[in-house]
């Protein structure tokens, strides 16, 4: 006599009771043994239904399907229990112990500020231009409309280089005092429209103290095209101030003097420390000088063979070191030239 339907059900129910105590390997074997597609007990029993009398098919089929569901949920429950056991074994360790780390590095805070400034001007259609740090007197001063023997030179305490030979007037080599020579180089190399920002190191014959460094970075901008006006200068730089500092930063422009721009201006922002009420950092004025700017002087355009009657432009320059000190509250510029790991690691990626 073939195994009865009753026997099959009883046998399966007995196996079902054992699922709860199985280990992982036994559980997998049991899964195959019962529910396996080719030779699983339940699978075979379900296949055999078709040979039964019609009236028995329904009740037996329902019974088997119910069993299958019970097996599936028993397997699932057992698996979940075992996973929890593994996790609870992990939970036994002291998870307050320190994590395993790798060394982290970082870009210098001044470079980060420069990158951020460049990024803002990238969005305004400016590309990055660079130039040499050793320059001729002509490119650093003459081409930028500095008259010889003029007090404007006092604003640029210059470090000269001893490269030998007997260079003619204007060809003496010096360390550039600003990034502005790159304005000349760029305009000479490429006709307008020109829109560039120029980051780079500049040099002054200044004693190294808390607020002065003999080498420092500057970032300069230049836009030359037909129809560029003082309104564009203001709009561009206000946009920059709002992007870099915050959208509600107060901005003002006031007259100033640079030989290579006219009209010239200083751009101030509302003091970052006191918010405008006046403090020591802003000398009580509520304002902080952030950059110098102006409309490119016609004589500068002429030195680059650009027709000043057709083209106009604006230029600006600012000191990332000072901006870095303001932004992070760094009290002494010399810290920005030191490789103190304790300092640098405060500015991680």
């Amino acid at each position, binding site marked *: 006599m073939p195994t009865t339907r009753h026997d099959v059900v009883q046998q399966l129910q007995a196996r079902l009771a054992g699922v709860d105590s199985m280990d992982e390997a036994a559980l997998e074997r049991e899964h195959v043994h019962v529910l396996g597609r080719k030779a699983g007990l339940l699978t075979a029993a379900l296949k055999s239904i078709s040979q039964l009398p019609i009236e028995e098919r329904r009740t037996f089929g329902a019974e088997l399907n119910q069993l299958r569901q019970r097996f599936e949920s028993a397997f699932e429950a057992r698996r979940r229990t075992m996973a929890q056991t593994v996790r609870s074994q992990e939970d036994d360790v002291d998870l307050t112990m320190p994590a395993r*780390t*790798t*060394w982290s*590095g*970082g*870009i*210098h805070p001044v470079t980060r500020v420069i*990158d951020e400034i460049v990024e803002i001007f990238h969005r305004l*259609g*400016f*590309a*990055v*231009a*660079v130039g*040499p*740090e*050793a320059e001729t007197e002509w490119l650093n001063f003459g081409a930028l409309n500095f008259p010889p*023997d*003029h*007090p404007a030179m*006092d604003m640029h305490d210059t*470090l*000269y280089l*001893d*490269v*030998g*030979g007997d*260079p003619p007037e204007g*060809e003496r080599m010096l360390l550039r005092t600003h990034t502005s020579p790159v304005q000349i180089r760029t305009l000479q190399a*490429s*006709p307008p429209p*020109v*829109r560039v920002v120029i980051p780079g*190191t500049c040099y002054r014959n200044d004693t*190294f103290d808390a607020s002065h*460094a*003999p*080498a420092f970075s500057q970032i300069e901008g230049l*836009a030359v095209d037909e129809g560029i*006006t*003082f*309104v*564009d200068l203001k*709009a561009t730089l*206000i946009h920059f101030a709002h992007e870099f500092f915050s959208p509600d930063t107060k901005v003002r422009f*006031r*007259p100033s*003097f640079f030989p290579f721009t*006219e*009209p010239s201006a200083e751009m101030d922002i509302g003091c970052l420390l006191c918010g405008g009420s006046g403090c020591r950092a802003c*000398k009580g*004025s509520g304002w902080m000088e952030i950059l110098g700017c102006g*409309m490119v002087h*016609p004589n500068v355009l002429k030195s680059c063979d650009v027709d000043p009657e057709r083209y*106009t432009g604006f230029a600006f320059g600012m000191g990332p070191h000072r901006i870095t000190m303001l932004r992070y509250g760094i009290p002494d510029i010399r810290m920005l*030239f030191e*490789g*103190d*790991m304790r300092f*640098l690691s405060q500015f991680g990626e």
Partner: protein
Amino acid sequence: MNISRKWLEAFLRQPLDTHDLTERLAMLGAPVDSVERSHAGLSDLVVGLVKDTQPHPDADRLSVCTVFDGQDDYQVVCGAPNVEAGKRYPFARVGTVMPGGFTIEKRKIRGLTSYGMLCSAKELELGEDAGGIMELATDADPGTGFLEALELDDECLEIDVTPNRPDLLGHKGVARELAAGYGIQFRLPAIEGDYPSVPAPVRADGAEGTTGGVRVAIEDPEGCPRFLGAVIRGLTVGPSPEWLRSRLEAVGTRSINNIVDATNYILMELGQPLHAYDLATLRGPAVIARRGVAGETVLTLDATERTVDGDMTVIADEDGAIGIGGVMGGETTEVRSSTRDIFVECASFQPSRIRRTRSSLGLSTDASFRFERGVDRWAAPDALRRCLEIILATAGGTLDGDPVDVWPEPTNPPRIFLRPARVRQVLGEEIPWEALEQYLVAIGATVVSKPDDGRMAVDVPGWRPDLREEIDLVEEVARMHGYQNFSSELRPFRVGRLPDAPSDVAARAVRRGLSAEGLYEVVTMPMHRGEGSESVPLLNPLSAEEAFLRRRLIPGLVREVERNWAHGVRDIRLYEVGTVFRMAGPGERPEEEIHVAGLISGRRHPRHWTDGGHSGDCAQWDVAALFQRAVALANPAATVQVEGGSWVAVSAAGSVVGRTERIDADAPPWAAPVYGFEVVLDPAERQSQRYRALPETPGSTRDVSLVLHHDATAEAVETAIRATRGTRLESVEVLSEFSGGDLPAGSRSVAFRLTFRDPERTLRDAEVDKAFRRILQAVQQQVGVAPRGVDGGAAGE
């Protein structure tokens, strides 16, 4: 430039608020650097009225006064001989802090308590008079602030004047700017005292004239285009009156005597330097402006003998140089207390000559500061007359003849044409003709006409040497219109034609890459002590330590490693991307390169407790990896090779463009070894990267341990492995190294894993085995290296 608020008020004839003044000056282009209250130490003093005075019962020289401060009566014991009932004196009540720093306290004097002190001028540091208390010529109510009652409640504003604006180096110029800004008139303050009216200077014919018996001559018209002079006889040199003295003290100028003070007053008021000579000491008598003669010496007022040259203008008498024109007068002709007759000089000097003179003499003075920026030569006659009036009012004497004006080649300030269309082109806004006119008139220019071509002819004022071309007037228009009144609407623009500079793009990629390797970027000073003849020297270095430009970055980084050791930091990982310099030919531009350098020292990984606290220190293998990474980023065309005990990067052209280094530094005993690398950044644009198809077939691996004797290298083995053709070899990997055991001395066993793959189909084991055997044969033939034992690899990766 120091500016007194009260002096400005005297010009503008209205009270000024210091805060508002500061704001306006900033917006006009002369920002205020600092504000200092005058006599700030006297702010507690009040006007005291002496109601009654009685002799002290126990002391002959003391009196007992009843002093009223507007509210109460105080008993004050006073030792001054001049105290009188009914008069007003500076009164320091109990608690007042005196200029010397001591606090007035209630104290007993010969048995009577004194509640405060009546003060002398000396006690208030307002003069030398200590003989008696300071009688106040004021009818201010008792209790009024002392400074207020004497109109000493002033502020000194230090303004930052840009080099293009010499007109702001005097109160008149600042008052003019403010008057234009406020839209009001301004007028010279009156001179106190009696004086006769001074006639206008008389123009001499040619380059020579006479006044009061003194010959005045210009022999260097380039250096000294205009020279005015006058003689006053029979004056009395003495202390200046209060008004003159307080004006000067308010701007930080010490009062000397009435003559010197008069010239200093004009300097601070009109910006015109003048000089007074003791006429008795002038030989000739003559005053001559001429070029210096090489080797000639002048004893200047600062008691220094100075040697002049032919580029300098000296002031001479008939016998020799007595002063350096526009810079400093001489000691031999100085006005002294005994001087009775003086010659007053009011001259113009050429700015760039003055600049060269003061710079080669190393002597910057108030006079040279103004002359090198440009002093209004057209205003010189007025300045001289005003100075003479002050001297006559304060020192007496009489003018001997008309002042003389020697001006061999008179000129006018320039005329400039302004096109309203140009204003619009530069400033971006239409400013009507009337407004343009109004702005230019406000700065003192004369708008001459409206020529038919639509241009405006503008005669600029003599005190504005910075106005030379049309663009200068455009700036004045913008300034007077107010920068804040221009639109700031962002408008469409054309982008530039240039791409980002490739070297900057490359440098940024290097920084990102090395930061991701766990290194911190550092920026060091590019000035060093110099390394060999290729270092570029500075002509005017800050110090011997900074006398050359760096050739390499590593020395600067080593100093930073030492700095970290000094702080007890052992794990150090730094890099720098910076410019280095090398001498080119004589007189030529130095060569510049961007270098990338890094230094590592200390643990390979941060300490972790699972390692039992032990994690190895960085070794050469760590710097080699960083170097390879740095070369790939900074100089991708270069290849890394082993050379002489370190790794080098070799460019396609065969030159060494980078190397690793074991660094010898001044290390504390606990420090770990330091490894470094430096590589040249190739500024060329980078090739864009291409995608390589991912394999769709499985690979097969075979591991083998090869015994390398003596000088056989892993690189040679790998080269031989790769050189074997037709094997479908994909990669070679070094798994491990072993020496000792049963291996002969000097030999080592290196395990390699070879991976084979055919992109089209799955390789059969037999094919892989065959290729593997061919490779081993080739290695044995070419490098003489044989397997220690062949292990069959597991299939698949």
